[in-house]
C-alpha cells in the first residue's frame, strides 16, 4: 500500500465517506463511520443556514430528515442540496408549510433544472409549492399566498 497511489486512495476514502462507497482496506470501520456521520451533521447545518425556513419547518426532525436524504448522496453545494431535498419532500407530500414558502420563493427567483447551478430569472415569474405562491418582479420576490397549513 505505498507509492504513487495517494490520489486514488484519497478518492476511495471520500467516496466511502460521502457517496456510499466501500470502506477502503485497512481502515477501522467504527471511526470512519463516526466521521461519516459527523460530515452529515456538518453538512446538515450548512444546508440549514441556506434554507432556514425549510429546516425550521422540520424542527426536531431536520437532522434525521436531512441525514436520511443525504447519506450516500454527494453534495452539490448547500443551495442545491436544500433545493433538491425540498423538491423531494414536496413530491412526497411531506414538505412543511414554511419549507413550501421558502421553496416557492426560490423557484420564483431562479431557474434550477436539478443538474446545473440555479440561474437568476430575468423575467417576472411565479413559484409554487404546497399551496404557497411567490412572485418575482425585477429580482424582488414576494409571497402572494401562504402555504396550506
Amino acid at each position: 500500500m505505498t507509492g504513487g497511489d495517494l490520489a486514488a486512495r484519497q478518492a476511495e476514502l471520500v467516496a466511502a465517506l460521502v457517496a456510499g462507497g466501500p470502506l477502503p482496506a485497512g481502515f477501522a470501520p467504527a471511526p470512519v463511520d463516526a466521521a461519516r456521520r459527523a460530515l452529515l451533521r456538518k453538512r446538515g447545518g450548512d444546508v440549514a443556514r441556506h434554507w432556514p425556513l425549510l429546516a425550521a419547518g422540520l424542527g426536531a426532525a431536520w437532522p434525521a430528515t436531512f441525514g436520511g436524504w443525504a447519506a450516500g448522496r454527494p453534495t452539490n453545494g448547500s443551495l442545491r442540496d436544500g433545493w433538491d431535498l425540498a423538491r423531494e419532500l414536496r413530491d412526497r407530500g411531506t414538505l412543511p408549510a414554511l419549507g413550501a414558502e421558502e421553496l416557492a420563493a426560490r423557484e420564483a427567483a431562479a431557474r434550477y433544472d436539478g443538474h446545473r447551478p440555479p440561474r437568476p430569472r430575468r423575467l417576472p415569474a411565479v413559484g409554487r409549492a404546497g399551496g404557497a405562491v411567490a412572485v418575482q418582479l425585477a429580482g424582488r420576490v414576494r409571497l402572494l399566498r401562504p402555504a396550506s397549513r
Partner: protein
Amino acid sequence: MTGPHGVGIGWRPEIAGFVADLPRLRFVEVVAETVAPAGPLPAGLAELRGRGITVVPHGVKLSLGGAEPVDPARLAHLAGVAARVDAPLVSEHIAFVRAGGLEAGHLLPLPRSREAVAAVVANVRRAQAELPVPIALEPIAALFDWPDDELDEAAFLTEILDATGALLLLDVANVHANARNRGADPLALLDRLPLDRVAYVHVAGGADQGGFYHDTHTDPVPAEVLDLVGELCARHRPPALLLERDGHYPPAAELRGELDALAAAAGFPVVT
C-alpha cells in the same frame, strides 16, 4: 499591519455585533472563502479594519493535502483576500477536502506517510509562490487514522514545516481531540512540536458523542482544553490565541466569559 497578538475571535456574520463591541480586541480571523477579494467587505469586517484590527484570512477549502496540485483559482482567491484585508499572514490546514471529483465537506486527515508529506509540501510551496504574505499551517482533528502511517504526528508535522518554512497554527482543541480519541498524551505532542514556529493558536469547544470527542465549535470550551492552553504557555507562550465558534452561539456573557478565560489561561490582557 502587525501579526496577531493577544486574544482574538473568529469573525462570523452571526456574531458581528458582539465582536464589534469588544473594546480591546486587536485581531480576528475570517473564513477566507466567505470574503470576496474585489468589492466591499462585509459591513462588520470593514468597520474592524477601519479600527486597525488585524484580520487573518483562514482558508478551509484549499485542500493543501490533496494529491493533485492546489486549484490556482482557489489560491488566487486566498491571495486576493489577504491583500484585500491587508493581512499579515493567512492560514490553512494540513488536510484534504476533496478527491476524485467529490467534495468531502470538511477537513480530512492525510496518511502520515512520506508520499503525503511530499504532496503537502509541493502544494504549500505552490501557495507560497502566489501568496503576498506568509502562511501558517494548522494540523486538524481527525476521528480516524490511515492504516499505513510511517511517521508519528510530531514527525509528520515537523517535516512539513521544515521543508516549507511555514508557520504553525496550533489548535489546542484539535490536540485534545486527537489525544482523547486515540488514547494518547496531548502533552507528549506539545513537547515535540516546534512551538517557536507558532503564529497563533486556535481554541474551540467540543462534545462527546457516540464514544468520540467531536471538535464541534458549537459547544463550550472544555476545561481540559483550557488546561492545555496553560500547559502550552508554560512551555512557550504563543503570540496570540483565537476562539473559534461556528454555531449555537451562546448569550454574549457566556462568549465573553470564554474570551476572559483564554486571556487568564495565557496571561494576556482581557479584550472584553
